[in-house]
Each structure stands twice: as structure tokens, then as C-alpha cells.
């Protein structure tokens, strides 16, 4: 008993010491371990979050928005034909140092060239280091987009494109476009340990990397020579806590001040806790049901409209998403510029849907498959349950559906091949540009194996889509996207199910923390009272 009492006393002592020192340390309860610390080669939000404090890109997203602002590039010019983008780099930007590396020079054009060439050029000595998979660089179609990257002088870099591309700038704000230190890479190559570049990161960001213990903790320290506004905290710690209930318990006990991914069941308590601010925002995503428009009767727009009216959307939102979902009426979430709020969603009306189906020649008892993906995704917590609800709805209008699913990889492959009649999928945006959503309804992606699983190719929609891609004027582009939403609504190639709602509980003493519409965790400007 005595031992127990001593242990208790010791525990309380520790807790006391901890709270005294926490004045300058912000602890973030994260959900998992990063694969590495180089955003060029990894693909998960967890890994991007872990590398973000250390790095910068040429351009960056203003915290809490999808708006682009200068980063390591102070400014840029776009040539009149949109084929060349010239970046003027910031001067006097320092790199971090570590036990193994002390930089001898400031950031310059060589670092930009090294970073992009590593992903792009097979003859870069780093191309194959750490697995060499640059998934995002490839997914954003950079290899086909880029013609050349040239150093005009130490502080000017010119990107020449194969075709004008307005979303290109937003791409460069993404994590994969991170700028690494060429000098550090050279040093590690000489030392025979090139993979160190991806494990002990050296960047120009507001925090230097201190230490990482797998599945336990990541530590960062504010970088005194950071080129931007100095961090308002001294130490940043990621406490890797996989269970959402444990994260919430830690937040309540002030063992961490910011947490990711609350359990929906805890939201109520979080809202009521006087020490906690429950921040929320619609996620940059969409869950949808695609009608395969190459297969009759889904090739008729009236049939697709009728099926859209047959689905009881509010019940799905209530039953499957609980508080963490918002009914979708457009293919892009409302946080993206150009969202067309004037669109009137189809009303749930099974009687009218039945009539329309009859008029379109769909017999009572028509059979179709209805695919649901076998995984939980940020935009869809339970696709099977959604499918079951839809099945019941379709039954009411005389359509018999069979639920179909496959292993996730197989599922995507078969859907992209167009094997389904109706099927669920979704999308999480990368860079907050509408183009990054609408390409999923474009003609290029409608080919077999492409990502447009409605296999829908509409000339008016496609013309606008292509035109918007090459228009650099934001207001003009926005008008085109608004019009595209009108077309998509009328043609109904997909039924827009929902956008998830992202919740982020933080302690009340955390200042200037903004929920990122891009689903990022950003601590550069966060303070503690």
C-alpha cells in the first residue's frame, strides 16, 4: 500500500512539473507514425503532417484557406501564353542544421532544381532512394505537364510547361512539391547514407526536427532563423496516440492540446467541455454514387434523375454520418471557390421517380448491381450501410439491386474498367482547386481504366473544363466551374451523397489554430496562452 501511495505521489509530482513547463510546448495527439519525413515519397496525411513543420514549398496555402500565397518564392510571373511560370526566390533563407549536417549556404535555385529533378529525372542520383515512388508527383501529372525547369540565376527559376495549366500553381503548394536541401543531399550521398535525407529532415520551415521514436513521439524545436514570422511556441511535440478515445482522454487531461479524428460518439461531450473548443468544417471531399452511363438504361438522363430522386438522402446523412456529414448537392464541397450555391437539389420523391422511370421505359422489377467499397474512407464511414439504405429506396421504385463488393484494389480497378452499373466511390481533394474534383467527370478520365466511373463524357461540360484549365483569371474560371455544376446537376451522372464534416477539438488556451480545408495540421502560426 505504501508503494502504491508513493507511486501516486510521484505521478502527481510529474503531472505538476509537466504543466509548469507546458507553457511553451504544444502537444498534438496524432493518429499514427509517418512512413518517413519526405513528403515527395509518401502519400498519407499522417506523414505529410509530420513533415510540414520542417519544410516549405515555393508557394503555400494561407492557413485555413485554399488560397495560394508566396512561400520560398517571393513572387512569380506567368507568360501571356501560360506556358512559362518564372519564380523569383526569397533571399537569405536559412536551412536547419543537425548533428550530421551544417549548411554552408542559403537556400537558392539549386535546391529547387534538385528537389524537382529527384522526382522527375531518372538520372538524378536520388531518384531511386527510399523506394523512389513519387506517387503525388505522378498523380498530379507533372511528368506530362513539365517541359523543363531552368535556373536563370541563383534566385530565379523558370518552369516551362507543355500546355498552359491554371491549377499548376496550386499543385506547387502541395506537400509533394517540398523543397529539400541540395547541399545536405550531396553530403549524405558522399557519406553513403542518402536515405538519411528522408529520415532526418533538413528544411527551411518554422521548426527543426529533433527526434522521432516510432509509434511514440516526434519532437520539433522552433527554428530561430526562420524566414517568416517566428513560431509562437518553443517546442512542438506529436504524441502518437492511435486510439481516438485515448486521444480525447489526453486532451481532457491537458496531456495534449490539439487532437485529430475524434470519435463521433464523443462529439457531444467535447462540445460541452468548458476547456475545449470544438472546431469543425466540411471536409475537402465528396462521397458519390456513380451511374455507369455507358450501360442502358443509365445512358438516359431521365433515368439518372429519377434514381437521384428515389434516394432518401437525409436518412443516409442521419443514419450513416451522424453529426459528421453534410448532404451534398454539388460535386465540390462548399469550401472550394466557385461552389454554386444556387443549385436546387433534387427532392426525395419516390412516386415521381417511379413515374419517370416508367416513362423512360424501365420495367418494374429491373435488376441492377449496386457496388459499395469495402473500406472506411474519410468521406464515407460505412459504404455498405449506405448501399443497404439505397437498396431499400430503389426497391420502392421497382428496381431490384444486388450489392457487390471486392477487395479495395480490385474494386477500384473493376470500377475504373466500367464493370459496374451503379457504384459508390468518393474523392478527397489535394489542392483545393475545382479542377482537382471536376477531372473525375471529364472525358479523358471516362476511358476504360480512367477515374471517371460514371464513364460520362459531355461535350459542353468538357469544353468548359478544358477552357478553365487554361484560364488564369480566377473570376473568369469560377464562372466556368459554376456553369459546369449546372450541367452536372441537370445530367446527373452521379448522385452526390455527402461531404464529411471534420471536427478538431483543441484546448481553449491554443490560439490562432485554424482547421485547414485541405485536411492539414498546421502549427507554424499557432500559439499557447
Amino acid at each position, binding site marked *: 500500500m505504501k508503494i502504491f501511495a508513493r*507511486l*501516486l505521489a*510521484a*505521478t502527481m*509530482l*510529474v*503531472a505538476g*512539473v*509537466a504543466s509548469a513547463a*507546458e507553457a511553451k*510546448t504544444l*502537444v498534438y495527439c496524432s493518429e*499514427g507514425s509517418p*512512413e*518517413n519525413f519526405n513528403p515527395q515519397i509518401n*502519400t498519407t496525411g499522417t506523414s505529410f503532417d509530420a513533415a510540414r513543420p520542417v519544410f516549405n514549398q515555393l508557394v503555400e496555402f494561407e492557413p485555413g484557406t485554399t488560397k495560394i500565397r508566396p512561400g520560398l518564392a517571393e513572387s512569380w510571373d506567368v507568360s501571356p501564353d501560360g506556358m512559362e511560370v518564372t519564380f523569383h526566390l526569397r533571399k537569405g533563407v536559412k536551412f536547419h542544421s543537425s548533428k550530421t549536417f551544417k549548411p554552408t549556404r542559403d537556400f537558392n535555385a539549386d535546391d529547387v532544381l534538385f528537389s524537382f529533378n529527384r522526382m522527375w529525372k531518372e538520372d538524378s542520383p536520388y531518384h531511386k532512394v*527510399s*523506394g*523512389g*515512388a513519387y*506517387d503525388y508527383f505522378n*498523380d498530379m501529372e507533372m511528368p506530362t505537364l513539365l517541359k523543363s525547369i531552368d535556373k536563370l540565376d541563383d534566385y530565379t527559376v523558370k518552369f516551362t510547361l507543355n500546355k498552359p495549366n491554371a491549377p499548376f500553381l496550386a499543385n506547387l503548394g502541395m506537400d509533394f512539391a517540398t523543397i529539400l536541401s541540395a547541399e545536405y543531399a550531396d553530403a549524405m550521398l558522399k557519406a553513403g547514407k542518402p*536515405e538519411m535525407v*528522408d*529520415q532526418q529532415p533538413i528544411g527551411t520551415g518554422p521548426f527543426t526536427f529533433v*527526434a522521432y*521514436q*516510432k*509509434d*511514440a*513521439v516526434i*519532437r520539433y524545436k522552433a527554428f530561430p532563423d526562420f524566414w517568416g514570422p517566428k513560431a509562437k511556441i518553443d517546442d512542438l*511535440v506529436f*504524441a*502518437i*496516440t*492511435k*486510439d481516438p*478515445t*485515448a486521444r480525447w*482522454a*489526453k486532451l*481532457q*487531461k491537458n*496531456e495534449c492540446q490539439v487532437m485529430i479524428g475524434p470519435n463521433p460518439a464523443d462529439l457531444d461531450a467535447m462540445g460541452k467541455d468548458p476547456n475545449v473548443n470544438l472546431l469543425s468544417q466540411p471536409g475537402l471531399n465528396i462521397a458519390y454514387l456513380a451511374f455507369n452511363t455507358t450501360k442502358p438504361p443509365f445512358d438516359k438522363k431521365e433515368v439518372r434523375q429519377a434514381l437521384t430522386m428515389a434516394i432518401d438522402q437525409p436518412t443516409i446523412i442521419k443514419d450513416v454520418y451522424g453529426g459528421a456529414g453534410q448532404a451534398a448537392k454539388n460535386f465540390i464541397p462548399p469550401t472550394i471557390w466557385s461552389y454554386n450555391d444556387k443549385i436546387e437539389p433534387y427532392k426525395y420523391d419516390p412516386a415521381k421517380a417511379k413515374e419517370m422511370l416508367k416513362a423512360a421505359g424501365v420495367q418494374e422489377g429491373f435488376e441492377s448491381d449496386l457496388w459499395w467499397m469495402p473500406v472506411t*474512407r474519410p468521406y464515407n464511414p460505412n459504404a455498405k450501410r449506405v448501399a443497404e439504405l439505397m437498396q431499400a429506396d430503389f426497391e420502392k421504385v421497382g428496381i431490384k439491386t444486388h450489392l457487390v463488393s*471486392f*477487395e*479495395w*484494389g*480490385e474494386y*477500384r*480497378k473493376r470500377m*475504373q474498367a466500367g464493370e459496374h452499373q451503379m457504384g459508390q*466511390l*468518393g*474523392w*478527397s481533394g489535394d489542392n483545393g482547386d475545382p479542377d482537382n474534383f471536376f477531372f473525375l467527370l471529364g472525358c479523358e478520365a471516362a476511358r476504360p*481504366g480512367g*477515374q471517371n466511373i460514371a464513364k460520362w463524357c459531355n461535350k459542353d461540360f468538357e469544353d468548359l473544363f478544358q477552357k478553365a484549365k487554361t484560364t488564369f483569371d480566377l473570376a473568369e474560371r469560377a464562372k466556368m466551374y459554376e456553369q459546369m455544376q449546372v450541367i452536372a446537376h441537370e445530367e446527373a451522372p452521379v448522385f452526390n451523397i455527402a461531404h464529411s464534416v471534420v471536427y478538431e477539438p483543441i484546448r481553449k488556451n491554443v490560439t490562432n489554430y485554424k482547421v485547414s480545408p485541405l485536411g492539414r495540421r498546421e502549427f507554424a502560426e499557432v500559439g499557447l496562452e
Partner: protein
Amino acid sequence: MISFIIRRVLLVIPTFVAIAFLTFVAIRLVPGDPVEARTGERGISPERLAYFRHELGLDQPVWKQFLDYLWQIAHGDFGTSISTQTPILTEFTTLFPATLELATCAMLFATILGIPAGVIAATRRGTFVDYTLMGAALTGFSMPIFWWGLLLILFFSVDLGLTPVSGRIDLLYYFEPVTGFMLIDSWLSGEEGAFASAVSHLILPTIVLGTIPLATIARMTRSAMLEILGEDYVRTARAKGLSPFRVVGIHALRNALIPVVTVIGLQVGALMAGAVLTEYIFSWPGIGSWLIESIQRRDYPVLQGGILLVSGIVILINIFVDLLYGVLNPRIRHAR
């Protein structure tokens, strides 16, 4: 004795090959592969898929992949994780001490409380004490680890504020790991309060992981004791006037311990399974969640290597338990 050890160790080799084979085949029977597993909604183009499958050697016939793998293992090379690009042995040796530390504490907790509980229940057979202890043991045995862990966190950490929620030590302390065992490292660090913090972080996970073994050991000890207490030699010991403590504690318990030691040995395997959940709830950086994630990511080398290393350790512990029989009961010594 030595020939027994050699024989047992030699027998381990075919077991190893069989385990390697089973894991190798089982993970490949699960649909999807390491390349596809890391892609999201976009999927991956057939060209890139083929390229990376080739880079990882996954385009080879499975039998060839397996033989290559055995050859690699025979040379002490467990491969490199596909997702983190870190050698398996490095990851294992970083994470395993945490699991071992927790499992050892849980086992000590279970044994120290379980054996006396079993003995008391047996000597008070049919009384209120017996029913209470065995009722508690049955409850403990049927306790779902996940629920039990969260319940303890909510009660002791959140409501009463007595213990930390999760992790191995307060984040305030930062020192380079020396042994990987937090109790030792925190002691060596010399930082004030570090050791106490490490201990306080161990309390709840130890209880959660130790509950099921505790219940099993208590029940096993009770039934073994009951059998022994009915033996003639115990009656003789009582008849010649030995104190109840000597009868039970020295003569009966030592013989009753043989089945109990067997159970403890077998529990090591179960402990590994329990560690997966316990580590998840308490953010304990051990091998449990490492292995589970390797399945999700189809990180073949991690899963194969990790399972082999874990099973190797379980096999070694069981050999050790076999040897312990001889110490407990000279009649079954293995020496000729």
C-alpha cells in the same frame, strides 16, 4: 541436459521454416499487394504497378520468392520494410523492448497475484473466499481487453486523475534510449522524476494485459492445488504435525506448480495477442501495432520477419519452461 537442449533447438528449424512458409503464403492470399495498398481513390496505372512490382521482386513466381526469402533469412537478413524503407531487424529491436517490458510486468503481476489467489481459494475450498476469488477470476478471464482498457483510462486517468492516459513516459522527459526498456533508461537518465513517470505509465497497461493471465493462473493453481491437497503424502505431512504453512507452501505448492508453469509458458503466446490491443489503447510503441499495420499496408517483409522473430521468442520461452520442470520436479529432469 545439454543433449536435450540441442535436440530441442534443432527441432526449432523445421518449425521456423513451416512458420515462414505459412506467413509467406497467407499474406499473399490476402487480395491486394504492397504497391496497390498505398494508393488511394486514384489507383495506380498498370505501367507504374508493373514497374514497382518488378522493383520489389513481386513479379517472380511465388516459389522462387519464397526460396530467395529463406536464403536471405539463412544469412540473417530479414529484409527491409516496404513502407518505411528501414531494415526489419532495426524496427524490431527498436519496438520489441517496449513489448517485452510490458509483457514481463504483466506476467509478474499475473503470477504474483494469481498463484496466492489460487492457493487461498484451494485451501478455503467451498467458502465465501473461494467463490469470490473464482468469480473474480472468471470475470477477469472473460474481460474484453479493449473495453477493460478504456474503462480503466476513463476511471483512473480522466475521472480520478491518478495515472497518465497513455504513452511510456511523460513527454517532458527526453533522453536517448539506451536499452529500450523505459524503466532502465529513465533510471539511467538521472532526470528527477523520470523513473516514477515511467512506472506510473506502466500501471494501467500492466493491469489490462495481465488480467487474463492472472485469471488463468489463479484458476489453474486452484485446481492443481486441490488435486495435490488430496494426495497421501500431504495427509502424511499433516498427520506428522507439520504447520499448515509448510504443508501447503512447501510440500503441496511445489508439485502443484508444474501445470501452472506450463500454463504460464502457454500464456506467453496469448500475451502477444493481448499486447496488440493493449498497445493500441495505451499508445505503447511495441510490436503489436507494428504487425497489424504491416497487414493493412501489405508490407510483406515486416509481417514475415516480424512473425518469425516473435515466434522464435515464443519457442525459446517454451524451451525454457520445459527446462524449468526439471528444476521444480527432479523426477522429470532431462539428464541421463
